[in-house]
């Protein structure tokens, strides 16, 4: 049930016209800036995409509205505000694919659910194939996707050429032999995801508390009763942590060591250009992937820098490596200009797959280890984490995403790189 009076009113084309004719005086804050209450049923630490989504689903799907999201800076300032906006569910392993497909389905109804246009654009994602071994691997993956109820198409070189004539087919070091396409993949206006979830959660009465940093957990005899923050202690029956790159830092305040390292991933955007790249394209023989935003910028990225970092900035070698891949794959972009580069902190896990689980501490729950896959997971992660917080049971698509899988030997290692986070 939406708490009326607090919300910013329903958005619609009609409303836009009405406001335009009345000088836009009627627009209310998209979310309030409340002071924290003494106690909540649930506190979510981290006002990023996952935390805000969790709050939205707790309120809208699990009817828990005594919820606060505390954020040390401004909401959406973490990876949801600094990623390459790609959504997809083209995973191989049973531990992952059902979860990411669940998430993709949620994307498909997101705007109507939160009444905010995040521009979910299913323009498709294409993973290019350059060797026979790669085709075998992508065939196995495509089959896994289909057997999990997702969509997948294995394309021939000719089909790829027809869809992406600008790729380097004739003069390349690594021939393009085909591709694995997921048509339902695509891109989303990333900031709008955070804002949309925040606005919706707020309209259910969730308190979104910005500039409120978690400085500790209050834990007595193995039970967590709340969070110490820069705005004082806030009590809670349950505390859910969704802080991505800061997972290690925050959970260490609860005395936990995680199977996670924090690494910097750089991303890049070009000057605005007239549309030329249809969907998302990933290079299978170098570190490069690209899509084009609704504003016209080529949004692209590649590999992580590869060293532990909390700096949200990277260095030249990876910038060059990524652009080399881009020039090898689509040499038409040589004359496009790189406008801005930035870095996000990835919570790289030991097998490249996430963790959504209880901790050894009663009342403390963890959501992290997203590596560079966090954005596409946002709705799924929010729902699944809300489910865990509400029912103390893992959601059916997340039964494998547990802490103890490493000790028990049930790693979910898509890349097969082993316990080395910077290779995932």
């Amino acid at each position, binding site marked *: 049930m939406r708490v009326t009076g607090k919300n910013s009113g329903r958005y619609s084309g009609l409303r836009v016209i009405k406001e335009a004719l009345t000088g836009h005086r009627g627009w209310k804050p998209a979310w309030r800036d409340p002071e924290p209450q003494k106690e909540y049923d649930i506190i979510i630490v981290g006002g990023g995409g996952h935390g805000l989504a969790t709050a939205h689903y707790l309120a809208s799907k699990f009817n828990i509205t005594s919820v606060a999201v505390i954020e040390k800076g401004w909401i959406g300032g973490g990876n949801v505000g600094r990623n390459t906006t790609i959504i997809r569910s083209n995973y191989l392993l049973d531990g992952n694919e059902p979860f990411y497909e669940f998430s993709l389905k949620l994307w498909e109804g997101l705007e109507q659910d939160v009444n905010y246009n995040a521009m979910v654009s299913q323009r498709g994602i294409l993973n290019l194939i350059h060797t026979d071994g790669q085709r075998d691997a992508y065939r196995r993956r495509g089959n896994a996707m289909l057997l999990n109820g997702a969509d997948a198409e294995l394309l021939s070189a000719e089909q790829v050429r027809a869809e992406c004539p600008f790729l380097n087919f004739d003069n390349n070091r690594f021939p393009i032999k085909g591709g694995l396409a997921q048509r339902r993949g695509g891109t989303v206006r990333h900031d709008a995801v955070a804002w949309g979830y925040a606005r919706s959660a707020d309209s259910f009465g969730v308190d979104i508390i910005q500039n409120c940093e978690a400085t500790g957990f209050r834990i007595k005899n193995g039970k967590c009763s709340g969070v110490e923050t820069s705005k004082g202690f806030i009590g809670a029956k349950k505390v859910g942590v969704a802080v991505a790159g800061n997972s290690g830092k925050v959970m260490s305040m609860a005395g936990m060591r995680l199977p996670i390292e924090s690494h910097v991933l750089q991303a890049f955007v070009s000057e605005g250009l007239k549309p030329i790249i249809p969907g998302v394209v990933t290079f299978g023989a170098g570190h490069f992937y690209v899509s084009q935003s609704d504003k016209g910028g080529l949004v692209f990225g590649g590999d992580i820098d590869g060293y532990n970092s909390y700096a949200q900035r990277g*260095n030249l070698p990876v910038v060059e490596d990524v652009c080399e891949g881009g020039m090898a794959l689509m040499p038409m972009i040589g004359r496009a200009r790189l406008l801005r580069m930035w870095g996000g902190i990835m919570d790289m896990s030991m097998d490249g797959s996430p963790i959504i689980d209880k901790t050894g501490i009663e009342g403390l729950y963890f959501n992290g280890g997203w590596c560079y896959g966090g954005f596409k997971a946002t709705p799924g992660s929010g729902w699944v984490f809300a489910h865990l917080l509400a029912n103390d049971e893992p959601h059916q698509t997340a039964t494998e995403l547990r802490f103890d899988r490493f000790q028990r030997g049930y790693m979910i290692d898509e890349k097969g790189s082993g316990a080395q986070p910077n290779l995932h």
Partner: protein
Amino acid sequence: MIIHHPLLGPRDSAEFTYLGDANLIDRPDWQDKKAADKFYEYQYLRNNPAGEHQELWYHEAGDRSWLVVTRNTVTHEITKVELARDVARARGRSK
């Protein structure tokens, strides 16, 4: 980044391959009663500090030395670089 190699002086970090936490030197004893647990913690758990971090870098495009680099993960400032072999010996590893 620039890593001041103890033998070669300043080198671009692009010449190196990164492994991770220098605790990977402290491989447990295979005959320990708790070997299974110890190897799990050794292999999978990380302090992952926001601040000073001792980490292993391999001079792949250089002299093939493994180095232990003390670097701040927030500022990237490097305060110490040692040959991993010396560190390993100092930590009691031998044969």
